[in-house]
C-alpha cells in the first residue's frame, strides 16, 4: 500500500476517535485536547493527499495551509485556556 495513503487513513481514524471523545468526555480541558487531536488528524489527511501520487513533488499549497493551520490552532487553544481559567476564577468567586 502507498505510504501516504496509509497515513491519510491514520488521519481519518484520529479524527473519528477525537470526535467521539469530544462529545463523550465532559471536562473542558479534555475537550480542548480532543479538538487538537482532531485537528492533527485532518492535517494528516491534507498532507497525505499532497503526496499521494508517488514520484511527483508534493503539492506545496496544502503544506502552506497546514503550517498556518497549526499556528492558528495553537492560538485558538491558548484562547480557550484563557476562557477556562476565567470560568474557574468566576466559579471561585474571584473577579
Amino acid at each position, binding site marked *: 500500500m502507498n505510504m501516504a495513503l496509509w497515513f491519510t487513513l491514520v488521519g481519518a481514524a*484520529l479524527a473519528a476517535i477525537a470526535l467521539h471523545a469530544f462529545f463523550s468526555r465532559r471536562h473542558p480541558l479534555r475537550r480542548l*485536547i480532543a479538538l487538537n487531536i482532531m485537528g492533527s488528524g485532518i492535517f494528516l489527511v491534507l498532507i497525505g493527499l499532497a503526496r499521494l501520487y508517488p514520484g511527483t513533488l508534493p503539492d506545496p499549497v496544502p503544506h502552506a495551509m497546514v503550517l498556518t493551520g497549526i499556528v*492558528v490552532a495553537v492560538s485558538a487553544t491558548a484562547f480557550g485556556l484563557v476562557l477556562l481559567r476565567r470560568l474557574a476564577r468566576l466559579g471561585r468567586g474571584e473577579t
Partner: protein
Amino acid sequence: MSGVTLALDLLLGLSLVWLAWRTLASPTLFGAIVLFIAFGLLMALVWARLDAPDIALAEAAVGAGLTGVLLLAALADLQQGDNLLPVREPLRGWLLQLILALCALGLFTLLTLALLGLPSPPPSLAGQVLPRLDGAGASHPVTAVLLDFRAWDTLLEIAVLLLAVVAAWSLGSHPHPNPRIVGSEVLQGLVRVLLPFAVLSAGYLVWRGGFAPGGAFQAGTVLAAAGILLLLSGLGRPFNGRHWLWRALLASGLFIFTGVALGTLLLGGGALDYPAGLGYGLILAIELGLTLTIGLTFIALYAGEQDAAEERE
C-alpha cells in the same frame, strides 16, 4: 518501499492512533497532557516521513512544546483551590452512546471512501505553483505560496493571531504562571546558554525560509519557546503587555504586512503584488515582522496580562 521503512510507517501510524486513544482515555488530566505532548513528538516524525519538513519543524516546536506548556500552566491554575469549573454530567443512556459511536464510525468510513475514490493522479496545485517559482520572491515553494501567491491569507491569519491576544487580554488578567521551578539555578544556567542559540536559530530559520524549509512560522515558535523559558526560569522580568514598546513589537508583523500591501497598491499593481526584483527583500521584511508577532503572541497568551495595579506595587 523497502521492508524496514514499511515496518516503520506501520509502527508510526499505529502508535499515533494508540497514543491518541490513551490521551483521550487517560484517567488523570495531567496524564492526558503528558501523553498529548508525546503525541505531538510522534506527529513531527510523521511529517518528516511525509516529506513535509516545514510542518515537522513547526510541529516539533508547537505540538510538542508550546501547546504542552500552555496546557500545563492552565492545569496548574485550574487545580488551585476548589475546582469549580462547570463540568457537565457524563453522557447517560445506551442510545446516545450508540449514536455517538455510529457518528464517529461514519466519519471514518466516509473519509476512507472519499480517499479511496480519488482519481489517479489526485488533483494537485503543484503544477501551477512550481513553474511560477522563478518570478516569485522566494524559491522555496511553501514560502512562495505563503507570502507571494496566497499572501492575503497569511495577512489575515496574522490578524487572527492578534485578535486572540486582544480577546484574551479583554478577559482580564490571570495570575502569572508561577510553578515551583522558578528560581532553579540549574534552569537559569541552561536558559543563559540556550537563549542566544534560540534567537540565532530563529534568525537562521527566517533567512533560510527564502530557499529551503523554514520561515517565519517556525522561527516565531522558536522565539516564543525561548521567551517562555525565560519567563519560567525567573530570569526575565514579568511580561508587561501594556507597555507601548511591547504592543508595537506585537503588532509589527501586521503593520509591515499591511504597509507593504498599501505600498504595492499605491504603486499601481495589485495589493501584495511585489514589483519585479523587490520580492525577496519585501518578503524578508514581512517575515521578520511575522516572526516577532508570532513569537510575542504566544508569549502574551502564555503570560496573560499583568494587572496594572500589581505592576505599580
